[in-house]
């Protein structure tokens, strides 16, 4: 009986801290705006099939080629007469999956490698950083290109390739933040209470290095959407006829002057998504920092 009371106490306390976090998050109006846009895009991703059936975006109609925006086709049609609105809506799935999953994977590997390099130093640092340097030497897009070319083009390989190109930058950043945090007295104090290295890294070092890491990861999401667009542009990304924002852009290039709307609509969605993630990332950093609480 007593135990269950304490359990609900703990639960309510956790609820309280979530509430507190939310209160601080929505106080930041730009972050809230970002969050609203993000919700809107997530809504599109989840209910894409309800909004417009997938068949619509691969259905070709020769008689309706390159029509401008109008009541029949809200965003117009492309060179095969496919409905651009449907393609943008369904493209959001590919773009978001690519952006979010590559960034999270790059964050995961970057955090482990970067934190070990910065925290342990010496040989570990040297080995990790020299390998990172090798990868940094190759331009990221070229690196993803090489990996995709080697593994073959499909969604999974694309994500792997882009993660590989994104990890080195993350390792660098996280190592440098960890270096400054690992020097702090509270880390040494933690050691003096008998805390093991793993626990120190995950409970003391990384949480205190969170600010720059969150910002970097959200920036990384928009970066990844854009570089997936880049890869699609040169034909190494998502293969047609599957829609993806980047490949929509690359098709639009041919008709830049005669049908600019082909470029404008996917472009707007890419920009909105990037913006939303960046704003939310900024807001998260502020809301999670106990020092900025008031």
């Amino acid at each position, binding site marked *: 009986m007593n135990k269950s009371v304490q359990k609900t106490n703990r639960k309510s306390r956790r609820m309280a801290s979530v509430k507190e976090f939310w209160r601080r998050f929505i106080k930041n109006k730009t972050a809230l705006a970002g969050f609203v846009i993000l919700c809107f895009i997530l809504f599109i991703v989840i209910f894409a099939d309800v909004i417009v059936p997938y068949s619509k975006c691969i259905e070709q109609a020769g008689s309706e080629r390159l029509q401008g925006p109008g009541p029949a086709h809200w965003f117009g049609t492309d060179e095969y007469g496919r409905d651009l609105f449907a393609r943008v809506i369904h493209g959001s799935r590919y773009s978001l999956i690519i952006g979010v999953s590559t960034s999270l994977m790059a964050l995961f590997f970057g955090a482990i490698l970067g934190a070990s390099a910065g925290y342990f130093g010496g040989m570990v640092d040297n080995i990790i950083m020299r390998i990172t340097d090798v990868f940094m030497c190759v331009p990221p897009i070229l690196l993803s290109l090489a990996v995709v070319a080697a593994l073959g083009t499909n969604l999974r390989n694309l994500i792997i390739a882009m993660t590989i190109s994104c990890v080195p930058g993350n390792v660098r950043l996280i190592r440098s933040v960890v270096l400054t945090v690992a020097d702090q*007295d*509270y880390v040494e*104090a933690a*050691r003096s*209470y008998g805390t093991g290295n793993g626990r120190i890294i995950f409970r003391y070092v990384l949480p*205190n290095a*969170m600010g720059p890491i969150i910002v970097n990861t959200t920036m990384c999401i928009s970066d990844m959407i854009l570089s997936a667009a880049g890869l699609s542009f040169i034909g190494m990304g998502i293969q047609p006829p599957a829609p993806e924002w980047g490949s929509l852009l690359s098709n639009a290039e041919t008709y830049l002057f005669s049908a600019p709307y082909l470029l404008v609509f996917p472009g707007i969605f890419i920009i909105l998504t990037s913006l939303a993630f960046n704003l939310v990332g900024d807001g998260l950093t502020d809301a999670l920092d106990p020092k900025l609480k008031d």
Partner: protein
Amino acid sequence: MSDNEILKVKDLSILYKTDLETVYAVNHVSFTLNKGQTLGLVGETGAGKTTTALGIMSLLPKRTARVTSGEILFEGQDLLKMSEKELLGIRGQKISMIFQDPMTALNPVLTVGDQIGETVRLHNTKNLSREEIEKKVEDTLELVGIPKERKNEYPYQFSGGMRQRVVIAMALICDPRMLIADEPTTALDVTIQAQVLSMICDLQRKYGTSMIMITHDLGVVAETCDTVGVVYAGEIVEYGQLADIFAGEDHHPYTEGLFGSIPNLKTKARRLQPIEGLMPDPTVPVEGCRFAPRCKYATDQCRSKKPPLWEKDGHQIRCHFAGIRKEAKHE
């Protein structure tokens, strides 16, 4: 090692080696700490007091520091020969440390209660449940004079003195057998110093913890310690009971210098007498007495030959003239 001793440091030497230079930080230091007692290590900044403490905790920076000689016997076991895993079980549970600067010794992203509980969770040998740990954290907070309602607050919401109480709570929550206090009051203002100091001593007495008090403040030593070691340039130059140091007849010239540098209400000195000069460069190995360049009694013998250890009833002085030179003391 007799039953009464909890820590015995024998002939400990520590040096920091980098590509550019070798710093001889601690040189052949020996001392003993008895159960329930307090040992004071007094000396200037850079004398090697903190290095000694970190050496006992095996927390020296691995890449640069080397222990070149000696043993550190804690309850009969040599800490220097223990594996990292065994040490993890000792740190925090049997030996814990109070750090100098409370402003930086607390993790800013953990609440105070979480942080204090962390030590218990790490050494949960009694298999306490979460609720019991919470209870223990609350009790310990009350013990150091912080209302338990504040346990969900973050370190930045506390003042310096309150933070030092938190640090002390963290050090004491596992009932360690030995406590190392590294200048626990240096970063606090004077009014808080006295409070914190007397709190540490009360708790130490209450739980029978042994303590090493590292400080540069002779006032703190007089108030808290049973045994005192005066550290100069990585060496203990004088070692004895509190009475030997404060009221004894024989002294090392450096100890005299220390007493000459603090104001005294009883004597009418116009000016304080600081010790001239600076500590010797720790990167240069010394032939004779380390204090010779600053000592007003130094002779050629002092500069060329290492002084032997003079001893009388447990009162040790490392000086050629100890026991011979009776000085008009504390003039």
